């Protein structure tokens, strides 16, 4: 975690063709029950005012140029937060003709066009739970530890030879 993430994170909500379930959960986080504003998180109306982009949806081909414009408009250092299964790995749309299939493909396109993104965070869930978003905010601000790690397990055979 770098130093600048300790200040209040202002976020811009970027829908790239999602089904609106994740968007509703983002609004749910801002209600008094979960209250993301106690961490200083605030929705802003323009990417030019934002520190982070909350990306939902699998990035449709129609939305791609607009997404790139929005990322370019965000001042450095910029964070990209991929929310929901669609955004992280393409979700159920990972191999359809009309989407590029999530943030990993988007990062390749951004690299080609030499647009830099300083931090990328991934939040899986379909849709993401409000608690998962709170946990991610805690992770970005360094309040909680990362709990997930990659695992390689070897299947155990019973007979030998």
């Amino acid at each position, binding site marked *: 975690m770098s130093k600048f993430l300790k200040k209040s994170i202002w976020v811009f909500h970027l829908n790239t063709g999602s089904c609106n379930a994740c968007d509703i959960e983002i609004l749910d986080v801002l209600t008094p029950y979960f209250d993301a504003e106690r961490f200083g998180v605030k929705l802003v109306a323009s990417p030019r005012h934002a520190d982070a982009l909350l990306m939902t949806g699998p990035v449709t081909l129609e939305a791609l140029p607009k997404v790139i414009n929005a990322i370019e408009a965000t001042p450095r250092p910029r964070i990209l937060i991929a929310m929901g299964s669609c955004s992280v790995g*393409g979700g159920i749309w990972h191999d359809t003709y009309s989407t590029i299939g999530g943030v990993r493909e988007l990062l390749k396109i951004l690299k080609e066009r030499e647009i830099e993104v300083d931090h*990328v*965070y991934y939040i899986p869930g379909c849709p993401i*739970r409000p608690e998962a978003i709170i*946990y991610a905010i805690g992770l970005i601000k360094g309040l909680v530890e990362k709990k997930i790690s990659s695992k390689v397990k*070897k*299947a155990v055979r019973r007979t030998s030879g």
Partner: protein
Amino acid sequence: MGKLGFIKILVIAGEAGRVTRRYPFKPETLVSEDFRGRIEFDETKCIGCGACVNACPPNALELVDKGDGTLLLKYFIGRCIFCWRCIDVCPTGAITGTRDFELATNDVSDLYEVVVHERAECSECGGKYSTIRQKEYVVEAVPITESYIDKCPDCRKNKLLRALERRRGGVYE
């Protein structure tokens, strides 16, 4: 609302009390019993049959043949929609569901889980087929298969065809 209107709001706020959750500063049970989270594999039970791969709607589960005698069952949490259909179809009960929702990360490779299987070798042609664990599972369930389970499906088919040819007076190589 007059000058003392805020008193009304204070009364309402007093009745409602504090509703905001203290998570993540205080550990709380946030999710209900019915909540579906990340799935977990029991590597002692998994046989690598691929039933979960067939059932998975977004292909979060994949079987990858590495070509060096191993078969990988790959689980990518970033694509999983947490429908738990894999748990329903698993014949050995190797997949269990957890209530785990704290999956946020800054490294996408954290979201992979892999079970490594050994592939079985055919005693006749030496080709790879199925997995050793699946072979053991079949023999345990139906012991009569032990006589021909060490051959791959192609060799088994050829053996049957040759037997038929012999019966019908055909040419036997």
